[in-house]
């Protein structure tokens, strides 16, 4: 009898615990929605962000040339033309989506499209430039792997008489019309959202930050510094415990994040410089038994499909994300390339694409995926 009472009491306690835990987790998602904003926040204490470097990748400023760059036109100067599209690497969801969007545009506007894969390798990108020149297209949408190397690469294609527009990484010098993003302010908004959520959920508990980084690319350094600027704007006494090189791929990011959490078990905020980095960090938290919205907050940029299931999950600590928008990049590059072919854009023309923050609600996630990562 007593044993049954104890069992009943135990079962009730477990059920109650589960209900409380679920309620807390649901509160966490609701809180993330409540604290979400698509505005940049200003620092509460300017001294807290004084030492954070400013952006390095947008040396031509972040003003776009006037025009309806983000909408699909009635007609395009690319119709009937031969177009080469290069991508950094088709192995990443972002570039795969870019390639998909271009293929759809090629059908809609009736132009020949050839996709060249750089495989995230400087040597391959270098060879690919020769292949593009041999293909002799009317227009090239070129994705540099490296800002400095892009300058002679673009110059060579232009010397061969090709019309070139660069997208994604901005070349280190002004050599061609270009589409790029503000790699500082986009992640800064993520930092603001993560900071607001952290403050609302964890109050005055000290925020200790770990970064799963990829220090080789200046563009990525802007992401990291932008995030830190945003987070410390809201939580000025937050400290950075460690930044590890996660290689921007999930398996290496996972090992690096595991080590970082071992070295600094007090870390309760993680920023992943891309989705592979944050997914690797989330797997490390799972392996350490810390995967819970009560652990702290994980934030990143990219907005690819796999992270969306984390962002929308009640249990997941992933609570802030800004998208790196493949459709917006595609349509802006398509329009700018059309303008360049029509002689309406020169090397001083630039289009700056935003990093839209993604609301962690069902609607926010759906509208993002529908526009940027549509399913066939």
């Amino acid at each position, binding site marked *: 009898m007593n044993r049954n009472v104890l069992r009943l009491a135990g079962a009730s306690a477990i059920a109650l615990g589960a209900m409380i835990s679920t309620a807390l987790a649901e509160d966490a998602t609701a809180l993330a929605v409540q604290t979400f904003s698509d505005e940049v926040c200003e620092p509460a204490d300017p001294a807290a962000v004084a030492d954070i470097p400013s952006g390095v990748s947008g040396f031509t400023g972040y003003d776009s040339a006037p025009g309806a760059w983000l909408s699909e036109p009635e007609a395009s100067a690319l119709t009937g033309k031969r177009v080469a599209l290069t991508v950094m690497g088709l192995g990443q969801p972002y570039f795969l989506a870019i390639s998909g969007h271009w293929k759809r545009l090629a059908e809609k506007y009736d132009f020949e499209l050839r996709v060249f894969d750089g495989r995230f390798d400087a040597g391959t990108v270098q060879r690919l430039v020769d292949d593009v020149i041999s293909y002799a297209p009317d227009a090239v949408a070129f994705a540099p792997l490296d800002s400095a190397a892009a300058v002679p690469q673009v110059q060579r294609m232009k010397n061969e008489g090709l019309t070139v527009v660069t997208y994604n990484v901005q070349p280190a010098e002004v050599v061609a019309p270009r589409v790029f993003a503000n790699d500082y302010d986009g992640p800064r908004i993520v930092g603001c959202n993560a900071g607001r959520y952290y403050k609302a959920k964890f109050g005055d508990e000290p925020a200790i930050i770990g970064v799963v980084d990829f*220090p080789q690319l200046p563009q990525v350094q802007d992401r990291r510094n932008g995030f830190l600027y945003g987070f410390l704007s809201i939580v000025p006494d937050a400290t950075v415990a460690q930044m590890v090189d996660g290689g921007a791929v999930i398996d290496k990011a996972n090992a690096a994040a595991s080590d970082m959490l*071992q070295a600094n078990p007090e870390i309760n905020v993680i920023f992943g410089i891309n989705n*592979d980095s944050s997914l690797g960090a989330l797997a490390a938290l799972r392996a350490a038994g810390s995967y819970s919205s009560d652990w702290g907050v994980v934030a990143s940029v990219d907005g690819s499909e796999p992270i969306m299931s984390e962002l929308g999950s009640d249990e997941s600590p992933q609570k802030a994300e800004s998208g790196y928008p493949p459709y917006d990049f595609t349509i802006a590059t398509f329009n700018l390339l059309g303008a360049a072919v029509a002689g309406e854009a020169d090397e001083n023309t630039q289009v700056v694409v935003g990093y839209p923050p993604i609301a962690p609600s069902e609607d926010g996630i759906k509208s993002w995926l529908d526009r940027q990562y549509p399913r066939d």
Partner: protein
Amino acid sequence: MADTDSVQTAKPGHGNSGFVRLIRDGHNLQTIATLMVLTLMCVLFAVLSDRFLTASNFQNIMRNAAPLIIASCGMTAVMIARGLDLSVGSVLAAASVLAASLAVAGVPLYAAFVLGILFGGGVGLINGTIIAKLSVSPIIVTLGMLNIARGVAYLITPSAILVGLPRNWSDLGTSKLAGLPMPIVIAIVVACLFHVIMSYSTFGKRIYAIGGNEEAARLSGINVPRALILLYVLCGTTAAIAGIVLSSRVGAGDPNIGVGFELQVIAAVIIGGTSLSGGEGRIIGTVIGALIIAVLGNGLNLAGVEPFWQWVAQGIVLIAAIIIDRQVQDGMRNVKKG
């Protein structure tokens, strides 16, 4: 071949101390030297970080090392037979995304795992058949397969990273058995199995014989092509198991995993004492070699070494590990002679 000799020479007795008896065997010598390097590294990192020598970090290192240990066991057997398999990183990725895509399609989880592993074995069968039957260099064949398998991995996944995996996909990578994380258990089982095969079975002795002198092995009646094919099947199988363990741990079917993994595997095998010219090597040495690589990555992170300096430090430490290893061996040989 050398291994069977060593088993004969490592007999107890003859009035010497246990230590001298132990190092009479050249392979024990090698293993002890590698173990000393590992110990030295552990001491160094324990001094540099108070978080290094903890039970949770030990589990962390072992979890990270598990896929490397698993894949390195297959590679050790191949390299002892004077072969090489450069496709292991890509096979790891292709097998894991195949299993993941099958699981997403509704195939029961463990059936998906088994099919992924069979895929790895199948790739090994193709590698082995071309190498053994058509006498094509293993470097060329497996380099080609490196590209093919990576391409297959990308073809399998429609959106680069598979989404919608079953909730229990991560169980293999995150659950525990008798208090040990499952990846570690799997690594131990695979290593023990390979140790038994290589040290105690006729097949293992044939592998050493082929690596020592392929022509002599052929003349002594060993079916060399069949043995080589089997070796590459084993290597592909271990790569696939490593892929599934890794993929389960990271909770995703990602075709980008395992890029450059083959170099880590080869480094682990060579640090562990397997000769590039074949005929020599031990599974226990390879396990220690894999642990050296895992401890190095972990220790540098725990010590807070800046990422760019980690690249430099990793290169220096790996070269130093080989030099110390060889020096210690020479020293011990002198003890043995004395």
